C-alpha cells in the first residue's frame, strides 16, 4: 500500500473512536501491542533528543526500502510510533522524505505536532524524514 492509502486506512479506523478518551485508549492499546521493550534499540546512540519521553529510532535500507525500528518508554508515544511506522516503514525512502503527512491532523493528534509540545512527535517525524533523506539519492 502507498503511504496515502495507509493514512486513509488509519483515519477510517480511528474515526470509530468518537471522543478523545476512546482515541487515546486506542493509542495506548497500540502502544501495548507494539512489542516488548527492545533492549538492542534502547541505546543512547539511537535516542532522539528533544522529547520528554525517551524515544529510540533506527533505520536501515533493505531491498530499496526504508526499514524502521522504534521504541519509547511512554505508552502513548509507543502508540504514536506504531502508527508512524505503519505509515513509513517498508516504504521507499524518497516517499518517506516527501510524503504529505495528514493523518495525525485528521485523527486529532495535530496539537501533539507543535514544536513547543514536549512530547516531540514533531521531532520524531523530523527524525524519520531526515533518516529517509540520508538514504535517498
Amino acid at each position, binding site marked *: 500500500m502507498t503511504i496515502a492509502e495507509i493514512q486513509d486506512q488509519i483515519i477510517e479506523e480511528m474515526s470509530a473512536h468518537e471522543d*478523545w*478518551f476512546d482515541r*487515546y*485508549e486506542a493509542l*495506548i492499546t497500540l502502544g501495548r501491542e507494539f512489542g516488548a521493550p527492545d533492549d538492542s534499540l534502547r541505546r543512547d546512540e539511537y535516542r532522539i533528543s528533544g522529547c*520528554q*519521553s*525517551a524515544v529510540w529510532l533506527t533505520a536501515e535500507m533493505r531491498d530499496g526500502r526504508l526499514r524502521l525500528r522504534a521504541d519509547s*518508554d*511512554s*505508552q*502513548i*508515544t509507543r502508540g504514536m510510533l506504531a502508527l508512524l511506522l505503519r505509515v513509513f516503514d517498508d516504504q521507499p525512502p524518497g516517499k518517506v522524505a516527501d510524503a504529505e503527512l495528514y493523518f495525525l491532523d485528521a485523527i486529532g493528534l495535530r496539537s501533539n505536532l507543535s514544536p513547543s509540545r*514536549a*512530547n516531540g512527535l514533531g521531532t520524531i517525524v523530523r527524525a524519520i524524514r531526515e533518516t529517509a533523506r540520508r538514504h535517498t539519492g
Partner: protein
Amino acid sequence: MMNATLDLKSDFPILAREIHGRPLAYLDNAATTQKPLCVIERVSNFYRTRNSNIHRGVHSLSEESSTLYEDARETVRAFIGAGDMREIVFTAGTTDAINLLARALGDCTTGGDAPFGDETRYSSDAQIGEGDEILVTGMEHHSNLLPWQDLCRRRGAVLRVLPLERNGTLHMEDISRRITSRTRLVAVTHVSNVTGIVNPVEELVRHAHDRGALVLVDGAQAVAHMPVDVASLDCDFYVFSGHKMFAENGIGVLYGKAARLEELPPARVGGGMVTSVTLESRREADLPLRFEAGTPNYPAAVSLAEAIRYLQRIGMQRIREHENTLHEYMREQLVKVGGLTVYGSAPEHSGSVAFNLDGIQPYDAGMIMDRMGVAVRTGTHCAEPLMRHFDINGCIRASLALYNDTDDIDRLAEAVRKAQSMLG
C-alpha cells in the same frame, strides 16, 4: 472536604477558561503564576498613560515613569524587609539575578589589566578565586547550579554539594564540617521547586556566617507563598522572579546587603549605570543603578509593585495558612488515591508536590491529566540532580498558588485516577 480559607479565583480572568471542555484546574504555579485583573489593568494603564523611558528625560512622562519605577523598588524593599532601596536591584528574573551575581563575584578586573572603570571601589577580597569553595545543595534548580559551575570553572574554584537525605531534605547533621574556612558562598534554594520542601535557611546562614561565607537564597518558590523577611533571614543575597508572584514576565530582583553589593563590580556595563563617561573611562553610578545597565523592564517593575500590593491586601500569613491547608489536603488525597509515590517529606512544605504513578511514565499521565483540564508539569523540572537522587527519570509536579482551592485538588485526584485506569 476541608474549607479553604481564601476565595480568589474571580480575581484571575484566565481561571475562567475551559480546557478540552472542562474548567481549568491550574496546578502549574511553580512554573508561572496567573495574573490578577489588577495587574493586567495596571500594565495596560501604564502603557496607555505613563510609558516613557526612565532616568533619562526631564519631560513629564519620563519623570512619572521614573517615579513609578523607583516606587516599585520601594514596594519590593518593604515587601521583603530590606533596610535600604539601594539593596534592591531589578533584573530580568531569578536566573538573570543569579548569573549577574556569579559574574560580579568572579569577574572583577582590578589591577593593571583593567583599563577602564573605577575598579578601586571594589574589594578584590570579595572575589571568588582559585581554591575557594562554593557550596550548593543537591536539590537546586539548574539556575542555581549552572552559574556556579561556570564560575568555578572560570576561576579555579571548587564546587561542593550539600547532599540530601533519602526523604529529600538537606543533610544538616555535619553542616559545620561541610562549610569550611575555604567556603566563600553557600547557594541554597528557600523552597524546592520540585518537592516543595522548605529549607532551614536561617540555620544555614548562621553556620555560613560563622565561617565567614556568604549566603545566596533562591527565593523563586518562596516569595509568593510565605512571608519573607531578608533581615531576619540575614542572608547576604536573595533572588526571585516577578512572574512566579503574579506579575509580568521579565522582571526579577537581586536583593543584596548594601555592604556586599558595594564590594562588587557591575557584571555588565552600558547606559544607565554611569554618572560620567569619557572615551577612556567611566564613573559608575551608585547602588543599585550600577547593576542595571541598559533600559530596565520598567513596565514589568510597575506590574511587580501592583502584584505585591495585591499580595499585601490579602496578607502573606493568610496566604501561607491557606496554602498549607491545601498542601496537606493534596498530599492526603494523593495518598488516598494510592498506587503512586510522593517524593520528599519534610517538617515544612510549600507549593509543590512531586509524585509518580506506579508503572506509568509521568509524560503519559500528564497527557491524560491535561485532557481532564488539570494543568500539571511533567519532566525533570530543571532539577536533574534531584531526579537522580530519587532515582527517577522525571515526575509529575502539582504546584499551588493562593487561588487554588479544594476543588482543584479533587480534580487532580480525579485526573490521577483517570490516568491510572487508562494507563495502568
